[in-house]
């Protein structure tokens, strides 16, 4: 862990939803890194470790380039957080060509999933690794058999489209040769989808995948914003304000985050990349809320 490089500039606080809602430096990367420098153990940092949504906004902000997500995941391995386990898929199937890993929330909406699969002309993987993602998020042990059966199921796939931003980050690490893209990027690259975006839309970027590849994706979305004249959930640092809806951590109130995203912005529709955000925004606005795949 490279916490020792932290010099306390606080830049990681600026886009952190936990900081925004608590104003407690102990619950931020700055606080964790400084505490570790001062001899704290993972057990001492339990509340801090459990609070993080893993949105990743802190990481591109850090001028020391500390791998802050790896740092929190490592701390969670030492101090796991409790959550309900995701289902382990029973069927095993080998995917080839383009494969969509839909994730828990999208899987529960077969209509939407079908639409997205047809838009992307892509096969939906039976095993989307959502149990693996949950285990990583919570710091639970991962069995090597489960991991190899998951990876083996798409060894021959050409391109993986992943809805879960945390799993995407890990897949890039595990499969450096594979083409792994986020569902948001894949859909927002399609001309048919782009053409349906309107200048009056508020477009909500899924933060985990975005921040995991920020230097490249900030250009992708910048081009999209300029082409379609969109408003987005990017802040002034061009980091995506998260709702935290997909997170296992419960410290952040997604409704409050969603209200902050909407605050002062004029829009007619909210278009989200993360299916989990649909329900959140629907509760805080009477305007239409759509998934990018619904356009």
């Amino acid at each position, binding site marked *: 862990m490279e916490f020792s*490089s932290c*010099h*306390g*500039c*606080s*830049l990681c*606080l*600026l886009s952190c939803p936990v900081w925004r809602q608590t*104003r*407690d*430096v*102990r619950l931020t990367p*700055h*606080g964790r890194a*400084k*505490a*570790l*420098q*001062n*001899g*704290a153990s993972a057990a*001492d*940092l339990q509340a801090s470790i459990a609070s993080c949504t893993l949105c990743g906004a802190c990481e591109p902000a850090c*001028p020391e380039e500390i791998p802050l997500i790896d740092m929190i995941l490592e701390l969670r391995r030492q101090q796991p957080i409790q959550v309900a386990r995701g289902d382990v898929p029973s069927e095993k199937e080998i995917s080839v060509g383009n494969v969509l890993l839909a994730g828990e929330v999208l899987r529960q909406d077969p209509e939407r999933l079908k639409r997205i699969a047809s838009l992307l002309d892509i096969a939906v993987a039976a095993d989307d690794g959502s149990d693996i993602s949950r285990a990583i998020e919570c710091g639970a042990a991962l069995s090597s058999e489960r991991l190899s059966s998951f990876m083996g199921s798409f060894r021959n796939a050409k391109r993986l489209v992943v809805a879960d931003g945390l799993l995407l980050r890990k897949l890039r690490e595990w499969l450096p040769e594979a083409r792994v893209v986020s569902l948001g990027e894949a859909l927002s690259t399609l001309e048919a989808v782009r053409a349906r975006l309107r200048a009056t839309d508020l477009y909500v970027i899924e933060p985990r995948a975005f921040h995991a590849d920020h230097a490249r994706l*900030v*250009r992708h979305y*910048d081009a999209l914003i*300029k082409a379609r004249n969109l408003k987005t959930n990017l*802040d*002034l*640092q*061009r980091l995506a304000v998260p709702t935290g809806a997909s997170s296992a951590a419960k410290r952040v109130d997604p409704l409050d985050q969603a209200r902050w995203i909407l*605050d*002062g*912005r004029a829009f007619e529709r909210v278009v989200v990349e993360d299916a989990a955000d649909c329900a959140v925004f629907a509760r805080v606005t009477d305007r239409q809320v759509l998934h990018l795949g619904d356009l």
Partner: protein
Amino acid sequence: MPRSQSTSERSTSSQQTNPSRWQGAGWPAFVSSLKDVAVIEDAPMRGTFATDAGGTSYGMPHGVVIARSAAQISALLKAAQAHRVPVTVRGGGLTTEGESVAFGGVLLDMTGMSKCLFIDPQKLEVRVEAGIFWASLAEHLRRQGMDYLSAPLNLTSSVGGTLGVGGIDVNSARFGCSADQALALQVVTPTGEIVECSDEANPELFRRVILGYGQFGVITEATLRIRRYTPIRMRYYYYASLRTAIEDLQMLDREQAADYTGILTMMDAAINLLVAFDSGEREAAFDAKWHSRVRGMGEAAFSARAFLSYLVRPWRWGEALFLRDRKRQLFPEFRRPEHTRDGKMEDRSVVFSRAVWKFWGGRQMVIPDLATSSAKFAEAVERGNAVCKRFFPRYTLYCVGIRLREEHRPHYEMSCIPPDAAGWAYGCEFEPMIGDGTWSRDHLQSFKNAIYDIGVEMGASYYRFGGMMKGYVRRVFGDPLVDRHLAMKRAADPAMILNRDVIF
């Protein structure tokens, strides 16, 4: 009057001032008297605040209090007076001389109070809790199409901390320092009274708190002047002479030719005058009237000139390569497409601040500075530049003008604004590029002393005269003024508990 000293009087060690640690007498009784104020005493949290951005001054508080309300701070200060426990206030902690470091006692973390309370776009005012970072304030303001007037280029200094020390931006030659944009404050005095003050209400307290280094109260809320947001168009002029660049800067400021001006250098080898505009009309007027009077070169002409000059000086090729690499790294940062639209820079504070942290930030930062009247400035910078050359192979100078508000002259007493400045004051920061290089603390301190000695000799002031540099307070301001302020401090803070190690 400043008193000049002979070289023999100015030994390094006599200037290196680390406060003694408060030993903790009565701490348990103090903590138990604080019924509704949570004091965090665990070592990791205390250690989080062990140093400031400078990274050369270290101290441990006995406990940390996260600020939550004026009432809570009032209770804290009342108890601190009764038990004689020092309280050190911290905003962003971006001081470099240990001014926001607690050498025992309580560290009051103001960032716990950082809400934007309301924005009034009609009256062009915002009310905030004082622990808010300028960057967070900008996020709120921009949703309403608004912007603050001026703020430090670092994103994480707080409003309260900045109003106490100054706050310089590249538009300060037009809008003044950040402290001058404060219209009203809520202050908790050292004895725990919660008082609203402004030029009209409790003006004496307002005068003392603005630019007061946290001596006369904790700023808990602030009403600030704001303006409509505009993206800006940047221009750069290059110089080989510091003096010429400074003369041009001062001419542009005097004539209010541009909306943003400043000088940023790489040593004295590449001197860059940046000029920027809020509107096409302002830029067109500049082109018509001032562009031809600016003696700086364009980028291509300057690069060609520098190339030829280095070509015949092979012993300076190392420097040439450094300049080339630095330019290659730095310039794209200022031209990032995601912060640019239609050739204009959006979010200038983000662009500048990120570059500042990336290219000048680090685990240790020493940024001594000189603040002078317009007339003395070129000489001060040249002398400071000569000191930089003696101490470091690589450094940066950053110069800006600060427009003064005549009616605020009482605010400026014993502050970074030099007493002889009229119209504009000028500041230059001398920032060695320390990077991961290891310089001894003595080397860094000697460097700061050498810069500050120039200030004493020239009758200047400093942006950072507190903390480890407080030995200079009496030398530049003289005993009568300092004693008068000390008497005011004693009257306001009988147990001398609030930020007691910063100035006196």
